């Protein structure tokens, strides 16, 4: 999937990788930052920061319509980034890559454009109870406006999808099936390829929320065969302000536009307009050019590491974290036990200490940044019978020593709360 040249490089040590991330050498509350919240947003390597910097310092101009040198350079930079992203996920053509702001906008684009054109009253949309709000609320809004029905694939106690229920829901011939490739709370990796094949057999269109998977797993959209795949730049070493919608060509061609305005048109008269070719039909207005450049640099960085290496590194860090966390009294871990079924995300609770209190203690006394809350997955929290969990998540720069600091902090929290 990646450049062959890159994959065969000598693997770099995590210590070496960390030197590429300026923020990792900073201190918080007088302690070195231990950043365990990459599932919310990753940190950025110098290569990404500098690519944007260089773009603004030497090649910025508006794109597509400029006949002069720097506008040609900017257009080139934008379209080269698109090609890089296409290659990174093995899309057949770069015109299948639509730049959005984030995963959330990508999903909403499909809900508004494809959804409005294809979903009618009484139609069924199948989701799961582990979805992030971003893959839930857009479908609620669509269902409310169209009169469509929503059904949900429930979870096993361990946090896996109940695939037998999924199969039964497919018998009702849903128009659309949308689910996440990896849970941002439980870490669960869903069997996307099989689920897509089953959904297609039942005649459904499939959207995959790859916000958590694109940054962490080798992703081949042709192999998965999903119709739409959505992800965010900021979770995969890239900048804020850019996301991706991948779609199958025939679907994207047939869809009406979403946002109207400059660049997405072929011709405009006062009362009607015709639309530009893909991908620009869906990119109205001046795009996030510098952000595309940054995302291009991010996928270059990841490809150079090799996504197999990334997955492997996170597997071993996660295994270590699970092992060490189990040594903390009164700590409860959520999600699958089998390592190959989970990504680098561990949600847990500790005694009767609320996750917010835990996060404050870890931050202020140990410099450890974890996430605490409902993780934009309230229905999943409901399922777990919780209001919130604490969550540690890992990436290419995470060291085992950082897990040790986390565990030390958890023990201290038990002391403070006199448990």
């Amino acid at each position, binding site marked *: 999937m990646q450049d062959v040249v890159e994959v065969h490089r000598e693997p770099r040590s995590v210590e070496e990788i960390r030197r590429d991330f300026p923020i990792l050498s900073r201190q918080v*509350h007088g302690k070195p930052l231990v950043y365990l919240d990459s599932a919310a947003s990753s940190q950025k390597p110098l290569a990404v920061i500098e690519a944007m910097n260089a773009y603004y310092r030497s090649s910025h101009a508006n794109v597509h319509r400029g006949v002069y040198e720097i506008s040609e350079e900017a257009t080139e930079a934008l379209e080269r980034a698109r090609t890089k992203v296409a290659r990174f996920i093995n899309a057949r053509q770069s015109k299948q890559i639509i730049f959005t702001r984030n995963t959330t906008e990508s999903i909403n684009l499909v809900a508004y454009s494809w959804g409005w054109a294809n979903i009618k009253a009484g139609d069924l949309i199948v989701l799961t109870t582990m979805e992030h709000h971003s893959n839930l609320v857009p479908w609620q809004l669509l269902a409310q406006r169209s009169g469509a029905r929503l059904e949900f694939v429930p979870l096993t106690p361990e946090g896996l999808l109940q695939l037998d229920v999924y199969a039964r829901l497919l018998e009702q011939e849903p128009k659309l099936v949308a689910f996440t490739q990896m849970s941002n709370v439980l870490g669960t990796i869903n069997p996307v390829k099989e689920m897509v094949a089953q959904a297609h057999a039942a005649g459904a269109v499939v959207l995959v929320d790859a916000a958590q998977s694109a940054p962490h797993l080798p992703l081949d959209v042709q192999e998965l065969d999903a119709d739409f795949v959505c992800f965010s730049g900021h979770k995969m070493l890239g900048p804020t302000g850019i996301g991706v919608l991948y779609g199958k060509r025939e679907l994207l061609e047939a869809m009406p536009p979403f946002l109207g305005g400059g660049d997405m048109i072929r011709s405009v008269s006062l009362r009607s307009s015709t639309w530009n070719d893909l991908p620009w039909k869906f990119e109205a207005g001046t795009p996030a050019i510098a952000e595309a450049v940054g995302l291009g640099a991010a996928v270059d960085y990841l490809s150079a590491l090799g996504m197999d290496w990334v997955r492997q590194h996170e597997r071993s860090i996660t295994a270590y974290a699970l092992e060490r966390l189990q040594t903390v009294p009164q700590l409860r871990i959520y999600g699958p036990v089998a390592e190959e079924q989970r990504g680098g995300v561990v949600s847990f609770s500790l005694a009767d200490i609320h996750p917010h*209190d835990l996060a404050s*203690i870890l*931050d*202020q006394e140990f410099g450890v940044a974890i996430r605490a*809350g*409902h993780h934009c997955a309230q229905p999943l929290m409901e399922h777990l019978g919780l*209001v919130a969990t604490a969550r540690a998540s890992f990436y290419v720069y995470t060291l085992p020593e950082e897990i040790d600091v986390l565990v030390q902090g958890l023990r201290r929290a038990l002391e403070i709360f*006199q448990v």
Partner: protein
Amino acid sequence: MSMDYREYILDHYRDPRNYGRLENPTVHVEDSNPLCGDQVSMDLLVEGDHVTAVRFQGRGCAISQAATSMLTEMVQGKSVEEVVRLGKDDILEALGIPISPARMKCAFLGLRVLHKSLVLAGLERPEHDDEL
């Protein structure tokens, strides 16, 4: 700045005062912090110009629950005039520890519910612009 969880905070968290519901409250209001999901509901009984009874229920962190518990102690039996004046400073003073910016919303959740209740009961003007 370090938020240290003093014993009295943990005490209010584990053993909240005025916890539960009232039979015939003048007003009942629920609210949650959209950013973290912490919840607080509050019952007020207003008789004459006094708040004669108050109860709350909630789920959330030590800060939000302890602050609400402390707040109910400040409300109980006070005149409406006094209750209307309760503000952020009173909460921070009661907590008595530094609160980091992100946790302010936790600390003030109960206060937000209280003022919503007072507005609903017609005892206070809605102050749109006050960000609790």
